[in-house]
């Protein structure tokens, strides 16, 4: 049981990294990873919303949608829950947790339309995880996103200093660097298989 959870966590962070392998959350990854501070703020906000969204959508999916054969409404219901949740969190933070709001508040509205949150919720349903497994998968996915953002805030500040051809600078070189990083993450596939076999 415990190794199973560890396996899910390991796979979510490294093997099935949401940015490099599953291509979720590419927009914030390309847009916000320019400096460390914003990258960290965005990733922590994403982890926060992802975990919260999983905690709310799992019971709703399990107790209402699946119980009454309404699975076809999943997309609609999940995105509305996420949108409402983000708004609620923003309002709550603004009122009661001002320091946290100052740090994360500006990223919250962006997360509604971020495919990583809807993606993790849908993948949890597809993989038929139970509640604890879903939570672990969300945390792992969020940490994987944090890892990618952290790596690339460093790599991009390096790229900014280097002399690269004009037409490659900006987005193309970032995408190419991400491609090479994705290749490195392929290596974890074998480790996961052998470590938890």
């Amino acid at each position, binding site marked *: 049981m415990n190794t199973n959870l560890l396996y899910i966590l390991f796979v979510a962070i490294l093997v099935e990294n949401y940015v490099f392998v599953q291509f979720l959350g590419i927009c914030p990854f390309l847009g916000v990873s320019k400096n460390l501070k914003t990258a960290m703020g965005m990733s922590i906000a994403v982890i926060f919303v992802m975990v919260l969204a999983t905690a709310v959508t799992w019971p709703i999916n399990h107790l209402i949608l699946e119980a009454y054969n309404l699975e076809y409404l999943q997309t609609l219901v999940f995105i509305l829950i996420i949108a409402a949740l983000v708004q609620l969190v923003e309002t709550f933070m603004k009122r009661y947790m001002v320091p946290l709001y100052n740090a994360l508040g500006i990223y919250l509205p962006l997360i509604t339309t971020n495919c990583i949150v809807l993606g993790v919720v849908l993948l949890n349903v597809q993989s038929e995880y139970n509640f604890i497994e879903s939570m672990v998968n969300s945390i792992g996915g969020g940490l994987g996103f944090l890892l990618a953002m952290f790596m690339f805030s460093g790599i991009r*500040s390096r790229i900014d200093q280097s002399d690269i051809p004009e037409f490659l600078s900006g987005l193309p070189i970032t995408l190419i660097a991400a491609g090479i990083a994705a290749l490195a993450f392929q290596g974890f596939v074998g480790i996961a298989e052998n470590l938890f076999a």
Partner: protein
Amino acid sequence: MNKSKEVFFQGFIKENPIFRLVLGMCSSLAVSSTMIASLGMGMSVIFVLVLSNVVISSLRKIIPDMVRIPAFITVIAGFVTIVQLLLKAYLLEINDMLGVYLPLIVVNCIILGRAEAFAAKNSIGYAALDGLGMGIGYTIALLSIAFIRELFGFGSLFGFQIIPEEYTILIFTLPTGGFLVLGFLMAIWNKLATLQGKPKAQLNCHTCPVAGLCGENLIRLQKAGEVDIKSENKKADAKFEKLDKVDIEIDKYAKPNTEKETNQ
């Protein structure tokens, strides 16, 4: 007549959603490993984009400004659900190929971006044309990525074998291939754009569909003097002040970092 022509064709090259506007990157990387999946994705996006543009454009005077994003998302999610059901019923193979990326059309920046930037401001006819043009532009971009990835990765096009399998290059089928091909294609588009004297493709607040909601963008607009703070209400004032503090902190943090880098 001229305007409708312009609206229709601008999505093809001038404002190509992937290479120029940098929207919908997630799906364009994920499904572009084969031509068939790309075509399926492109068709689904065209369907959702045209219909949601039409509905949003016709409701643009009814939807209050404050709740427009949730309203847009609800409309889009409705059409995405229709596509999901249709594909499941008639084209199960394509449904399985697209997997989780089909429901993720809901959060595809292209659709929300066009709703916010175009459909909410223009009449129904233009909104439909814009949706069709943008959708075709997106499909063209997807197919051009998929052409390279499928040809070199699997040696085939639309499933027909062209290059013998022993000469295929595995890396094009992996996620790495997606990033590399998109990166190099975007570099070529940038080069062509700079030759014509246009700016390079950038992912910034001018292209971001939810820019209207984002704190960072408000700060920038405020600095550029594009937003008259005094005309906003008091709550917004307080928000700007807080955001300004955050911005100053960000600047502080960023500066010593760059100095260190240059010293090395």
